[in-house]
């Protein structure tokens, strides 16, 4: 069971949260200009990193707010959390 530090509520058990997949995947600015490869990359491809992974979580059984987490997928250590819209802190990876 992960202990996830919600930026608003503090440390809570993983069961209160829901994982929202990889963070910082931006919807294309000009969708009608994209070719099929670029759509495939946006829709389906993932980094699936072994190591520090940037991902989104939502505290859906708590404050219901989204935030970003940098977690090491090889050890489950949570490196840091930061708010939506923010860039990952420098040196996190």
């Amino acid at each position, binding site marked *: *069971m*992960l202990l996830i530090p919600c930026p608003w509520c503090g440390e809570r*058990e*993983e*069961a209160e949260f*829901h*994982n929202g*997949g*990889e963070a910082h995947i931006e919807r294309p600015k000009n969708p009608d200009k994209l070719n*099929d*490869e670029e*759509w*495939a*990359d946006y*829709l*389906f*491809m*993932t*980094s*699936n*990193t*072994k190591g520090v*992974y940037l*991902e989104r979580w939502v505290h859906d059984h708590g404050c219901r707010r989204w935030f970003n987490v940098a*977690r090491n*997928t*090889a*050890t*489950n250590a949570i490196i840091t959390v930061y708010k939506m819209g923010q860039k990952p802190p420098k040196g996190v990876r």
Partner: protein
Amino acid sequence: MKKYSIFSLARNALGFHQGWEQAWRSPDPKPAYDVIIIGGGGHGLATAHYLAKEHGITNVAVIEKGWLGGGNTGRNTTIIRSNYLWDESAAIYEKSLKLYEGLSQELNYNIMLSQRGVLNLAHNLHDVRELQRRINANKLNGVDSEFLTPAQIKEMVPIINMEPNARFPILGASLQRRGGVARHDAIAWGLARSADSRGVDIIQQCEVTGILRDGGKVTGVETTRGTIKAPKVAIVTAGHCSVVADMAGIRLPVSSFPLQAMVSEPVKPIINCVVMSNAVHVYVSQSDKGELVLGAGVDGYTGYTQRGSLHVVEHQLASLCELFPLFSRLRIMRMWGGIVDTCPDASPIVSKTPVEGLYINCGWGTGGFKSTPGSGWVFAHTIARDEAHPLNAPFNLDRFTSGALIDEHGAAAVAH
């Protein structure tokens, strides 16, 4: 390779079992091979076996960073079935099941295949309709599948909870009689022994650290035991496929998740088939040792830790007790996790890649064990002929660009 038989058993018994030869060699890697297979799990070993047997390509190395079958091959719940909804999936899983049926003879190694039947339960009207749709689709594809009424289920599994006040009443089930279980270690060992006897080098404790390329063409691999050259390299690393593909600059639509399983203390024979339930979310069978083998859910986040969270286990055991109240005092002996590589459409990738001479077989997710021989068979064809077999042509990497997905999510009788 010395043949295993009742006579070899008797002969070796007379020699106090000191005369058995090693099932496969542990050679040092040669400087070059015709084909390098990265990953010594069931799928990689099956690929090597069929490359040698079906295509006569024996100058092959299987490179494994740990030991044979120590990853998902030794961590699954050993269930085999082929009752998938879509034509493409039914065809490849049915091919695999047919190969399983002859595998003990083919390998001269007892894989302990037990076709005891696989039940998938329906708990509401929608489940029943989906189930019947799948049964009909299976029949059209020549896959054995039949509907069982609650009374027939009770007769087959007397210990199941059929009380009318059950929270999740059982309204029916699909049954694939040819489905069942097999000994997962034996499959890895039997395939390794067969491939080795045909000249394949199986190199354990050797990790691939880089994939060598020259102008968009693969030339070999960098490993912890030096450089090994080959014009063809095949990635069969399941949960770690993204990590290895990244060495060749290939991005995959794969996410790796921990999938948990566990066994109970051994008890006398009490359940003689495999029972799976989507809605209550449990799958259970009994091993030859008497342990209940239980499969749990996938954790909700990417991970490589080979262990999952405890609340998934708690949910799993609650589900077990819902269906089988008499198991409530049974104790769990061991639990573990394997890293499953899942695609957005819950179907595998068995394909060529944009790099010439580089092939990939991954994304089997929670269906890897049952597909082991079929996956190896089509992948060996793809590598040997440099083109996909009709069975794996739909499972190419390009489908995520073309949009021709094979959406088995919830359609394939999967329990998660």
